[in-house]
């Protein structure tokens, strides 16, 4: 029993050390701009453009549900124009960044872990090293930069989409006028609502891509190992997104 606890403690400490080393190697690779700038542009397109439809789809339906649930909750107690307030605040502060983050943890994090994991088990990462490339500069830095820069852009579009679908739902199903929806939307709006959501989503992008890369490059054991890495990337990213979400709420709000 004590031995098992000890073993787990050692494994946990080793994992922290491993992440520390990984982070150090990534920072060391940053000045090698010539190596990472080209792949970073490719990754920005893959992370950004290719992920946009998923994020917008989720945001569109979230906006609809938010408007309807707000109206249901407020009925008879709170003026209906507060639907605009709730849709706006929730999309900007919470659901825009978090739902997009969770969805993209599945899409981006899993695909990065699978891609790098396959490269690792088929010795492509070793091949890169023998060709005098630094795998951190060629594989990790472009992905993490792409995630950190593109997530806020995706989330900005998701926020706008959720608010628009919330507004359209209010017009079509709640007998709320555009003026009333906008009145509610502006009521408690502060600029911090936007930058808080976007900053948070940048940290989610950083975390998801970093986890995808760490888990991917640590893959061992063929196809089964790649499958395991993919699952781990999604689970760890989702947990870290929720932890970070709470952390930023405590620190920044």
């Amino acid at each position, binding site marked *: 029993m004590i031995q098992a606890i000890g073993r787990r403690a050692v494994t946990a400490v080793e994992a922290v050390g491993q992440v520390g080393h990984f982070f150090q190697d990534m920072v*060391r690779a940053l000045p090698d701009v010539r*190596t990472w700038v080209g792949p970073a542009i490719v990754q920005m397109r893959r992370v950004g453009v290719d992920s946009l439809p998923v994020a917008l789809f989720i945001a569109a339906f979230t906006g609809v549900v938010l408007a309807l649930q707000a109206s249901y909750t407020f009925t008879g107690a709170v003026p209906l124009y507060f639907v605009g307030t709730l849709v706006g605040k929730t999309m900007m502060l919470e659901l825009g960044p978090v739902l997009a983050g969770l969805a993209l943890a599945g899409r981006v994090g899993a695909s990065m872990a699978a891609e790098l994991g*396959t*490269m690792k088990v*088929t*010795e*492509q990462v*070793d*091949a890169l*090293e*023998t*060709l*005098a*490339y*630094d795998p951190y500069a060629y594989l990790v830095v472009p992905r993490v930069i792409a995630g950190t820069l593109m997530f806020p852009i995706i989330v900005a579009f998701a926020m706008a989409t959720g608010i628009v679908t919330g507004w359209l739902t209010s017009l079509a199903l709640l007998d709320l006028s555009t003026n009333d929806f906008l009145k509610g939307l502006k009521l408690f709006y502060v600029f911090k609502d936007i930058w808080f959501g976007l900053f948070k989503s940048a940290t989610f992008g950083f975390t998801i891509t970093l986890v995808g890369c760490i888990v991917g490059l640590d893959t061992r054991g063929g196809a089964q190992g790649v499958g395991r890495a993919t699952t781990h990337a999604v689970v760890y990213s989702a947990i870290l997104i929720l932890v970070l979400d709470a952390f930023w709420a405590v620190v920044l709000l």
Partner: protein
Amino acid sequence: MIEFQDVHKAFGPKRVLEGFSLKIRDGETVVVIGFSGSGKSVALKHIVGLLHPDAGDVIVDGQAVSTLDRQGLTAVRRTIGYVFQFAALFDSMTVAENVGLGLRRRGLSAEEIEDRVREALALVDLSGTDDQLPAELSGGMRKRVGIARAIALRPRYILYDEPTTGLDPVTSAVIDRLMIRTREHLGVTGVVVTHDMRSAYTVGDRIAMLYEGKIRQVGGVTEIQETEDPLVRQFIEGRPE
């Protein structure tokens, strides 16, 4: 010159190399033979710093690989071409992009890269496959692309990890001929890891048998063929006992 000096390497409780010492002189091709899992590929990876020894060292051109910083290691790697067991081609790149990737790193112009890629593919009899993806190639062709990627760099040394494993006898003979042609045309020093004895006799100047983490016997092809060491005999004759 490449020299293994009393190299020890273990993975957890499994000791793979235990006092492995071997000198590879400039211009020769040394074939390292041994049972599956005996540590041949592990030894090869020490030369390019993909693995680091627990004790002892590998010396390449007078430099101890494990003591080099990232820059020093990169400089050593630029003198070495590595042919992986399953070719390790980049799936998302075409044949030409695979062969040219290492050249891009060396800062060559686009025309120079194109010329070198064409020349390397011609040397492995794969002219005209430039735009194909690795998935469209047979196993033997993939290995030849792997060799082209290594020789395009015009290295001083080429390391071959199981170059004929999994290939039919005719394709294996083609790969053997390529390795000989590479040595003759480019004058490179070669280290070949294999358990294919026909290939070992064809391409090797010397053959070294790795057993239980260290060299059991090293010598010329005839010397190995006529060995009286029962274990080496068993291996080269492929007898179960």
